[in-house]
């Protein structure tokens, strides 16, 4: 298992506020993190509707120790709070998901979504500006046309680099329920947005129309038994996508079969173990995240206590099951009372699909090596790690005598949860969101090899 160190002491906090890590405003809580397809950019969205994009510094021979640091590249307000007057409902500005489009020119494009609206943002650099206008002077004031005696052609002059974000498309009014996920198709022309009951297919160019491809709303809402929790396109097959449900099942659909993909072509579900049945069985089996592996052969799902890896060729049971924090099984009642049982943890593959990672409580996050079957628990905490120090593996004591460095289950801080993590597509760099702080960790071995 590679050792991760905090190579980059970058902790994101909004520049206008001076807050300690224990006290923060609700708006600063990071709600999503995502590397782009090259790993050069890292985007975060927060509850206040803002998107902050970090860019990796280019390697420089003069300062080799600063290799690969991520610095703020662009910050913009993606979504604002809205009010639906018809339903008397406030629409939160919280960014639920960000997905990057693969880079096709000098500009970067990403999709960001709140509960109701998806937006396509273009992030571009401007390092030149035109100077020498005829009708306005350098300050921008309009010149009196009668004073103009000669004409000149404006020329582009270099300027300080400016990164600007502009909303290029707004995809709205297609979702009655709350959007939980978006996914860009490998054809780079379409994407899906998913709410509790429906999946809609959009063309990136067309904003006034979307196609509904999955609809699980029953004729009588009283018969509702499950909702869609997440959906994702297959990484290579542009006609295939998967969606997970609150009942712990995953459906794989082929868009070539029919216009409406209500009928799945594969159905993944593991039968429930009757010996573990409890009041909360339905809650803990609800899938909070589904991710295809990079090679497209596997699916990973996260429910409250476990991460499961599924082989697309085997529907009746998962290939691998990893216990994230099974010691919480006995505390489900109190976790239900304080609402923690509804936390939606995400999961992520590394670039080679050999390691999977997911978050837990007490700012712990877990990594599972699928080949060696070893796992490690790490903590995202400023107190416990100095720059370039190797992260020490943590351990939760489940019973009996607690060893010196172990932490007991009752001492876990359930307000510190890591729900969102992302892994660099090619390198061993991970970004972990701990409430309002962003931690970026890098594999130490790589830095040694430089």
């Amino acid at each position: 298992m590679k050792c991760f160190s905090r190579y980059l002491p970058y902790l994101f906090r909004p520049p206008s506020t001076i807050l300690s890590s224990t006290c923060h405003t609700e708006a600063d809580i990071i709600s999503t993190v995502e590397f782009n397809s090259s790993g050069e950019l890292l985007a975060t969205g927060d509850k206040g509707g803002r998107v902050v994009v970090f860019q990796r510094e280019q390697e420089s021979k003069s300062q080799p120790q600063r290799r690969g640091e991520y610095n703020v590249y662009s910050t913009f307000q993606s979504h604002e709070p809205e009010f639906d007057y018809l339903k008397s409902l406030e629409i939160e500005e919280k960014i639920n998901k960000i997905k990057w489009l693969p880079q096709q020119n000098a500009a970067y494009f990403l999709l960001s979504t709140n509960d109701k609206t998806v937006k396509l943002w273009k992030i571009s650099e401007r390092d030149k500006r035109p100077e020498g206008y005829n009708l306005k002077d350098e300050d921008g004031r309009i010149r009196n046309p009668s004073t103009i005696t000669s004409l000149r052609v404006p020329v582009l002059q270099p300027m300080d680099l400016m990164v600007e974000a502009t909303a290029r498309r707004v995809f709205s009014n297609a979702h009655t329920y709350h959007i939980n996920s978006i996914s860009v198709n490998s054809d780079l022309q379409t994407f899906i947005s998913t709410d509790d009951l429906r999946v809609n297919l959009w063309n990136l160019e067309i904003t006034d129309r979307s196609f509904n491809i999955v609809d699980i709303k029953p004729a009588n809402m009283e018969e509702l038994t499950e909702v869609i929790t997440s959906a994702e396109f297959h990484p290579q097959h542009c006609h295939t996508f998967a969606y997970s449900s609150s009942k712990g099942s995953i459906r794989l659909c082929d868009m070539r079969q029919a216009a409406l993909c209500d009928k799945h072509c594969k159905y993944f579900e593991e039968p429930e173990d009757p010996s573990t049945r409890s009041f909360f069985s339905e809650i803990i089996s609800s899938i909070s995240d589904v991710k295809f592996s990079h090679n497209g052969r596997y699916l990973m799902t996260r429910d409250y206590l476990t991460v499961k890896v599924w082989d697309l060729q085997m529907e009746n049971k998962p290939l691998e099951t990893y216990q994230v924090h099974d010691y919480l099984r006995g505390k489900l009642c109190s976790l239900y009372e304080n609402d923690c049982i509804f936390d939606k943890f995400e999961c992520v593959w590394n670039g080679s699909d050999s390691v999977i990672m997911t978050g837990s409580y007490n700012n712990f996050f877990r990594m599972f090596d699928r080949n060696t079957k070893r796992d490690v628990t790490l903590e995202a905490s400023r107190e416990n790690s100095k720059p370039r120090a190797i992260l020490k593996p943590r351990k939760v004591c489940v019973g009996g005598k607690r060893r010196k460095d172990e932490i007991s289950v009752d001492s876990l801080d359930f307000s510190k949860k890591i729900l969102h993590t992302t892994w660099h597509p090619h390198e061993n760099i991970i970004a972990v969101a701990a409430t309002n702080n962003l931690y970026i960790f890098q594999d130490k071995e790589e830095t040694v090899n430089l």
Partner: protein
Amino acid sequence: MINTMECAVDAQSLISISLMKIHNSRTQRGGIKLHKNLLVSYVLRNARQVYIKEKYAEIYRMQQYEEVMTVCNEIQQLNPLELDAEDADDEEQARAACCGEDVSLCGSACHRDAAHTRTASALPGCSHLEYDGKEPEPSFYRSCCMEASPVSECDQFSANGRAHCNKTTVLDLDTHVVTTVENGYLHQDCCCDALQCGQGAQSPAKKRKVEFACCVSDVEELSDFTAARKRVKREDCSYTHPDYTDTSNISNLISIFGSGFSGLLSRQTDLEQICSKQVLASLGAWTRAIVAF
């Protein structure tokens, strides 16, 4: 089948917590979260199943005890030297109370027949309604999506290989709600429109009330009935968990939801104390009403 040893107390507190969550979700920013409320309704359903199962077991135990008492009294009555007139009246009222339980178990036919005979004179109306056929009129049926539990549950209720569980229609003398118990499982049906459920519960009850009043012609019988009602109420309260305040909170919240979300504002000042058993019995209706928004 929930494989926990949690007793009805935990189930009750879970129900109360769940209701509060659903109630609070109304004022949450961003609107009501369908997914979360669906999950909460599952917990509610599970807790209700455990709670009702526990209640059944408790009531069945009480009924068994009274059965034994009945047999003992019969034996006693064969010996006129030990007969006491007052005791006979008390026993009769106790049996009437049994008859008037708002939730009737799938007790043995033998037990029912015994109670029937004893109380036939005291509560003619009641007996008329209680044993009135196995196919109650649809208007008094509220369809419920509660899943049928495994057969083993039924076996638990019928003790010592007694008569097989069958359908029983019961009138709750306190609230005048008709309940059908089939195979030992509470089978309260609610109509498709969730909003009508609260009203639906009331209209058949009113209907029954009228019928009942017509049947009672004798003043003496009426007073017996009153006494039986009182007994029912007292015994009912004793069956519930000692911490009755939690139960009444549950009742209050359920009465709010029973009248639909639009009724929430208007009903806030008009809360009724509904018996917790009847309230919990109607969970199916409003549970899905929550999800139906």
